């Protein structure tokens, strides 16, 4: 339970608010690489602001606020030129730094152009996504987390959800929900719809723990029949502050991404890499495929017969912004309290002019995040449950993905794995 003022502060995303200023210190995926290959300019909303994102003919990316500084027409309808984005209305051109480099109907011997630069962000491509940083400069480095750079077969499921991102992030430090929402509830739905839910998700929690680390909070659990020597405790998996969670197991590597589009809309993305530890043979992909995951059925009820659909139901039905003034947390929610503290700490750091946790300014090749391999001590079974019972079953690549896991297991069994 929080006061109304603390709940308000925690859930803000707008510029000028303490949390909005924290959020503006991070990079966010704002488009699929595929989208700008199909058409080179796109309107994007991020942190409650609209931008025009474009890809130049030479493959560089730029991002500027949507409204042209001249007469406020949308730059998202702009003309992509070799050296910038041209406003469709009167032809002013802004380069990737936001400088106005052409005003066709104005005399060029004035300093008018220098007065009207667009406050540009920075945009880069990584792992099939276009990422943007729209905070104060100089921008930190785009973190090259393992999933975005590792070898493997990729796909990206996504949905836009009508709720604040903080309630989604609180789920990432709530281990107990797995045994109920993805265990008992899944089994209940399965009995009514005629399928068997995965047993590994219903295992009882014996112990949970949370460890702050340089990228966020590592979540740990001991499940019935296991010990602190099992991966679920010894390694765990991390909430990657402020808007990601790294999960995986059984040759599946995933970043769950929750982009605060605005205060009550969150872009939920499941960035998945299939790469069995042994027996994997690489499959080339010209472009990373993306697909929508279902949220509501034709009657407006949540689709709850898959893992992430159950999560979405639990997040969205809390309301657009969870009312934390009348919640009733228990001891088992202590991870949630720890996360709120981390959010609040970062507000102070940013107010002091410091970088918040999880930003990086050093050049780097790859950031490996801790993540258990033997998930729920279920072994390779986890990968098949992941395909059949999670969002991957809606992927256009499902058959290929299953084949990757089955073939790798067969190669291991026959002794032909490298």
């Amino acid at each position: 339970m929080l006061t109304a003022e603390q709940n308000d502060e925690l859930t803000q995303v707008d510029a000028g608010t303490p949390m909005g200023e924290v959020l503006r210190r991070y990079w966010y995926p704002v488009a699929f690489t595929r989208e700008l290959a199909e058409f080179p300019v796109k309107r994007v909303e991020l942190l409650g602001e609209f931008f025009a994102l474009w890809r130049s003919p030479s493959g560089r990316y730029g991002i500027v606020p949507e409204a042209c500084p001249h007469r406020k027409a949308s730059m998202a309808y702009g003309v992509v030129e070799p050296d910038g984005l041209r406003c469709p209305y009167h032809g002013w051109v802004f380069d990737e730094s936001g400088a106005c480099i052409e005003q066709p109907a104005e005399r060029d011997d004035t300093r008018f152009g220098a007065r009207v630069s667009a406050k540009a962000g920075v945009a880069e491509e990584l792992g099939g996504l276009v990422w943007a940083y729209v905070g104060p400069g100089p921008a930190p480095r785009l973190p090259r987390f393992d999933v975005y750079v590792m070898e493997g077969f990729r796909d990206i499921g996504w949905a836009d959800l009508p709720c604040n991102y903080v309630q989604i992030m609180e789920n990432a430090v709530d281990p107990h929900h797995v045994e109920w929402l993805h265990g008992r509830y899944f089994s209940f739905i399965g009995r009514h719809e005629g399928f068997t839910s995965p047993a590994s998700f219903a295992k009882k929690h014996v112990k949970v723990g949370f460890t702050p680390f340089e990228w966020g909070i590592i979540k740990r659990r001991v499940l019935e029949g296991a010990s602190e020597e099992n991966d679920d405790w010894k390694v765990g998996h991390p909430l990657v502050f402020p808007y990601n969670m790294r999960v995986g197991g059984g040759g599946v590597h995933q970043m769950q991404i929750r982009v605060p589009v605005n205060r009550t809309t969150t872009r939920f993305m499941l960035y998945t890499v299939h790469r069995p530890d042994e027996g994997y043979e690489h499959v080339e992909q010209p472009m990373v495929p993306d697909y929508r995951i279902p949220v509501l059925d034709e009657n407006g009820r949540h689709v709850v017969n898959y893992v992430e659909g159950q999560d979405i139901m639990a997040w969205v039905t809390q309301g657009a912004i969870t009312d934390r003034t009348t919640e009733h947390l228990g001891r088992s929610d202590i991870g949630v309290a720890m996360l709120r503290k981390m959010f609040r700490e970062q507000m102070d750091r940013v107010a002091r002019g410091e970088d918040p946790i999880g930003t990086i300014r050093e050049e780097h090749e790859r950031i490996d995040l801790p993540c258990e391999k033997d998930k729920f001590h279920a072994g390779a079974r986890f990968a098949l449950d992941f395909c059949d019972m999670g969002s991957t079953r809606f992927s256009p690549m499902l058959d290929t993905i299953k084949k990757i896991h089955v073939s790798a297991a067969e190669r291991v069994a026959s002794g032909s794995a490298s």
Partner: protein
Amino acid sequence: MRPAPPGRVERGPDRRFAADAAAHRRDVPRHCPQCGAPPALATEFWEGSARRFYCWCSACGWTGEITPTGATAVGHEPEH
């Protein structure tokens, strides 16, 4: 702002727990036990019948739990 995606749930104040919310406002710790500054954040949770406040003080960095106990001090008797 663009239209919200479908499925948005608007909830009014939950009047069933107005008394709990009022108790939170009344009892939330106003001073850090270490330095006396107002805690930057206090999340209230329950453990059995005990109400606890998980607090963080931005002035001195203190993190801990504060539990209102009422007038009665309760001991315990482990098996012996």
